[in-house]
């Protein structure tokens, strides 16, 4: 934010905002902190190992573009942003930027807790490279935008974290940068302020400024950016139209999700399990169609297969299954007895093995993490008693590429808009 080159001489639309040519950044990892000192004063270095946080990055971002950068944690997104803003210098290659950069890597960096909001605005503006006149000219706008009311005159230490962020955002975006870099900063604040932020970003884009947006929330990236850069292990894996890259990202997220889930499924003994034990339920396999998976899309076919082994003779056992969201919300539960056409198993003999299948034609839930609890109950008595009740028998994840609906449930829907005495518009999903 100390780049004082103004965009006026760089050329309006059509110029390049950011160019990276083979940019890479290596950090040195030392086993002992003292090695760093020896590297400074003694010959025979460098000691320690190199770690390439980012390598071989080629970017050519035109002015006025809105570009999203996605990738999982540790993919090098933050390092790339630091390189682009000039906070650190690339180890290899070069990076060129045209125009004043404002980064929202951290909102309110440099706020002093003892001072009032007003004083902190002044200092923060000066940290961000604004002159005294610029600060005065925009001061009231910043105060208004932050909506802090009388809190603006109280010490920042009395602010809630939301207020802190509001003030930081107001200052950072009023610098009037040519390039704005945002690092998932918008995920905080209440809905009202979030809306204001998005409005401001839209104004920004409309006035032909360049925006870089980093997130791993596919939904917001797709809604805001036309061009997406996918990073993986420090490299740019793919860049191009948002739709294409986003699909690639989801595919990868699925593969990775499956790895993680199956690891989680192997170690489920940590959760409560109780019952008389005549039947022991074993692995719960999940399928989408014919494919075994732990990652589903909303609306995809879902099948759960509960494997079991009979340890003692047993009358009228009933298998059931409950689906819970990771926050504990009970999403759905059923068993094969309490149905219009119940399955009645008179008896199971010791030593038998088998499996019970439950399927949903299409899984009507939206993005999130879910877990499954398996029930095996004895229904030979008036009140069913547990044979094997096993919580967290399996976990799965729902990944949503489209983000067309929000909340918990995927509902078939139909929209109609009617202008009285005029047109009628219709959308069937």
């Amino acid at each position, binding site marked *: 934010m100390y780049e004082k080159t103004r965009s006026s001489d760089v050329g309006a639309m059509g110029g390049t905002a950011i160019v990276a040519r083979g940019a890479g950044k290596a950090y040195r990892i030392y086993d002992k902190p003292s090695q*760093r000192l020896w590297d400074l004063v003694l010959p025979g270095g460098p000691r320690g190992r190199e770690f390439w946080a980012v390598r071989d990055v080629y970017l050519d971002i035109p002015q006025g573009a809105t570009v999203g950068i996605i990738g999982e944690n540790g993919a090098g997104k933050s390092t790339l942003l630091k390189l682009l803003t000039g*906070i650190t210098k690339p180890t290899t290659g070069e990076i060129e930027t045209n125009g004043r*950069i404002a980064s929202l890597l*951290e909102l309110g960096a*440099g706020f002093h807790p*003892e001072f009032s909001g007003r004083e902190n605005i002044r200092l923060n503006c*000066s940290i961000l490279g604004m002159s005294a006149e610029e600060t005065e000219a925009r001061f009231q706008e910043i105060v208004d935008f932050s909506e802090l009311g009388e809190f603006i005159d109280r010490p920042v230490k009395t602010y809630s974290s939301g207020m802190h962020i509001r003030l930081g955002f107001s200052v950072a975006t009023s610098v009037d940068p040519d390039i704005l870099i945002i690092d998932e900063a918008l995920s905080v604040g209440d809905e009202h302020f979030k809306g204001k932020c998005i409005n401001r970003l839209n104004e920004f884009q409309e006035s032909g400024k360049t925006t870089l947006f980093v997130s791993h929330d596919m939904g917001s990236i797709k809604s805001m950016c036309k061009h997406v850069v996918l990073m993986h292990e420090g490299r740019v894996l793919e860049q191009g139209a948002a739709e294409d890259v986003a699909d690639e990202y989801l595919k990868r997220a699925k593969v990775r999700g499956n790895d993680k889930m199956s690891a989680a499924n192997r170690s489920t003994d940590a959760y409560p399990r109780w019952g008389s034990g005549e039947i022991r339920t074993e692995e719960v396999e999940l399928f989408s169609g014919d494919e075994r998976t732990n990652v589903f899309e909303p609306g995809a076919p879902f099948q759960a297969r509960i494997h079991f082994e009979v340890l003692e003779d047993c009358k009228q056992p009933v298998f059931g299954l409950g689906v819970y969201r990771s926050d504990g919300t009970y999403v759905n539960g059923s068993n094969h007895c309490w149905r219009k056409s119940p399955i009645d198993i008179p008896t199971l003999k010791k030593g038998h093995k088998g499996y019970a299948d439950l399927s949903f034609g299409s899984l009507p839930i939206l993005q999130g993490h879910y877990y499954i609890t398996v029930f095996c109950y004895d229904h030979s008595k008036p009140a069913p008693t547990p044979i094997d009740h096993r919580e967290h028998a399996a976990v799965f994840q729902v990944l949503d590429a489209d983000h067309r609906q929000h909340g918990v449930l995927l509902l078939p829907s139909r929209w109609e808009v009617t202008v009285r005495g005029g047109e009628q518009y219709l959308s069937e999903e």
Partner: protein
Amino acid sequence: MISLLKNLIAGRRLLLDFVSRDLRARYVGSSLGFFWSVIYPVMNLAVYVFVFNIVLKTTWGPDQSPLEVVLLMLVGIVAWSAFSESLSRAANILVDNANLIEKVVFPSAILPAFVVGSALVNMAIAIPVVGLVLVYAMLNPTTDPSVLASAAETGNLGVQVGLATLCVPALIVLQGLFTLGLAYFLAAFNLFWRDTMHVIGVALMVWMFLTPIFYPPYHVVQKGFGWTLDVNPMHWLMEMYRGAMVKNLWPEPIDLVRFGIAAAVVFFLGTTFFAAQRKKFADLL
């Protein structure tokens, strides 16, 4: 060094903002406010006077009144506090402001500079108060006959305030250069070796007691440690401050020249080291 100076000049408004915020931050919420700039050295003085002059009965010259001795100590304490506070804060200043260096494009050269600037301004606030006491001491010379008798022999005129005081601002500038050089070096070096901030605390304490602030220099010379005074720039500086403020003596050319050279060399080395390493700061934090 040149690029760093350019940086400071380009960021002068930021530097001023930081200094003024830091000065206000010291006393924000405290009821005595800026008086602490004066109270602090005076309390310090009281403690050292008690230990050195009353308990240990350190002998200064028989030709010096107790008030003169106390004022010589006070001048030393005020100057030393600014020096030592600058260095102990500067050593950790980059770490304390890591979020500015890691998250914002920020001219890191500002940070050690504002610490030193703030300490010097704080010192400059205390000096006029010391000056008032000095004028009082000059107008009310001692009446102790034994002091007067030996003063007549040695030609000691007691506390004298006069034109030599005019060189104090120049001395502050020189002290600033010397302190800045060390501050830049320590701030950058601390990123390579984080023990620096602990070492500096101990080193400053040793250095303070090796510098004749609470006892007269001739004691050191008599015990055969006179060479320590010849390698201690802070001693040269103390002598100049005391001469100018308490005795109305212009600085000895030798002290002025050797302290000037020391300040220039230290400033050059410190800023050069800082400038050479600063590209790495974001990675080192």
